[in-house]
């Protein structure tokens, strides 16, 4: 099955799914960062030269630091997220799923120069196309990966209903589907919801087909049973 998820195993023996972030979302994040850097430099460029030569010197140092260390510092101190990445909810991690360290962050950002070649990240783009987890050359050398940061979602509500035991034994996958049907019920149109529910013949075969949403109700009841409201 084709998917963008990379599973890593922690030393505790738990598998964590990391969703690799591709170049679309990363280029937006990059753009945001570039904007922030630009605005910073612009402001400094207005403010500092009024201090004369000394200001110019400071400005040049600022240019240097913002150019090379803006991503590094943010990745270290904001746990793998530059402001742009934070907005796009993506994060840099080491390949074992831990936070980046100084070495890796320095490496991937120094090697940005190479990714930029020959023109506007063409090499990085090609590298991201061909590597499995959308890693540019800097990521490959530093052994890092950019992933979507998961955050606790609002948990969709399973509508309350009289719990009903499923008439047949269900596999795990089927159970999960039934629960997620109930959880996503509000997103479906009523007709579609009923149509979907009717597909699960063995669960709804004894129902009176005339009433509008009997099948859907039945599935929700089973879901209620499955999540333990019994």
């Amino acid at each position, binding site marked *: 099955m084709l998917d963008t998820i990379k599973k890593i195993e922690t030393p505790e023996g738990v598998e964590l799914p990391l969703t690799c972030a591709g170049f679309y979302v990363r280029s937006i994040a990059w753009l945001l960062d570039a904007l922030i850097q630009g605005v910073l430099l612009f402001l400094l460029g207005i403010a500092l030269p009024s201090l004369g030569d*000394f200001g110019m010197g400071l400005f040049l140092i600022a240019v*240097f630091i913002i150019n090379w260390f803006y991503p590094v510092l943010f990745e270290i101190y904001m746990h793998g997220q530059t402001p742009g990445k934070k907005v796009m909810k993506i994060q840099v991690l080491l390949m074992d799923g*831990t936070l980046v360290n*100084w070495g890796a962050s320095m*490496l991937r950002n*120094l*090697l940005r120069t190479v990714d930029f070649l020959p023109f506007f990240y063409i090499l990085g783009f090609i590298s991201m196309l061909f590597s499995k987890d959308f890693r540019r*050359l800097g990521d490959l*050398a530093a052994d890092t990966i950019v992933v979507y940061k998961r955050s606790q979602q609002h948990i969709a509500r399973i509508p309350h209903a009289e719990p009903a035991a499923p008439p047949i034994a269900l596999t795990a996958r089927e159970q999960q589907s039934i629960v997620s049907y109930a959880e996503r019920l509000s997103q479906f149109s009523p007709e579609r919801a009923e149509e979907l529910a009717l597909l699960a013949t063995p669960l709804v075969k004894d129902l009176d087909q005339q009433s509008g949403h009997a099948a859907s109700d039945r599935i929700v009841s089973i879901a209620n049973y499955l999540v333990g409201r019994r």
Partner: protein
Amino acid sequence: MNQARFIELHEQQWLLLEVLCNEQLHPDKIARRHSRQAKRKAKHYQPKSLYEEQILVLPPELIEQADFPALYREVCQHLSLAEARRYSPYLIERLSILVEQAHQAFYRPVHVYGDSALSAIIRFFTWTFPRTVRREINWLWLSSLLFYGPLLAMIIVIQFRPEFVYSVLSPDSVSGMEAMYDPQAEHIGRERGSGSDSKMFGFYIFNNTSIGFRTFASGLLLGIGSLFTLLFNGLHIGAVAGHLTHLGYSDTFWPFVVGHSAFELTAIALSGAAGLKLGFSLLMPGRKSRYQALLDSAKISVRIMGGVAIMFVMAAFIEAYWSSTQLIDAQTKYTVGALLWLLVTGYFAFVGRRSDESSNPALEMEPQAERLTDKREF
């Protein structure tokens, strides 16, 4: 056990772990929690977010006494159980996210040698950096050959065939250089009218360090980039030096450059060495796969680059504030220059030679868990 009961039983542990993770990764949150708990005691305090509600639900002493590693392992187990028992996907997702956060908090990079950043820096410069350079000394020799070779050759050639300078430099830049080091010039070593010491300090940091970084990075292109940059810079510097010497500007040129040359030239050679190592790991991976060879060499080269960055800053400092002064006579400058060369050589030759080279390589960062490993039991 059904899901509802499972949640009921472990809910508090999960909340606790979430709070602990947050406080491990963001130490400032501890103080905020304290203030919130204090506020909570005062009446009428409304929690602003769900996270706050969670914190306030937990008894403070539970947070203070919690054993993070044990709790983490326990929640890992909960996740495995939830997966095995096929609980609701949302519950599994929630636990999985929690475990991911805790995984990151638990294995986050921690300075092993003392906890402060300062001790890590001291450790780096008295141990890791010089030792790494010594271990990779062959790459340094190679890059020095590629850098100093053309440099010296150019100086010598120009003494006999002065017109050679134009093969590297454009006539404009040659005349610019001449103006900069003209003994009658107001500011030696600088373009006429360009700013003060501090401006040049900024400029040197910005310009030279960037060049160094690029020398390193372009090494990833099978070493060609570093090779080219080293040769080019060698020829360029050699041409300038040769030309000015030939013109008879030795008295202004050499005292100016001798001070910072130790740091700057060595830093360039080191950048080249790191880049070459990177590129050649792809060309000649040895017994490893090419990718593995790249990973290994990249880890080492970036350490060198960390030191190189500081060397460039020092070179910039010397160049801006020492080399440019005209109050100090040439003799002193030569002496100081020689001393600095000695210092740099001595630093790389001797610092960090505590024990035999074969002992464990000094790792800068190690996962926190290393410290937590138990004594081996039979």
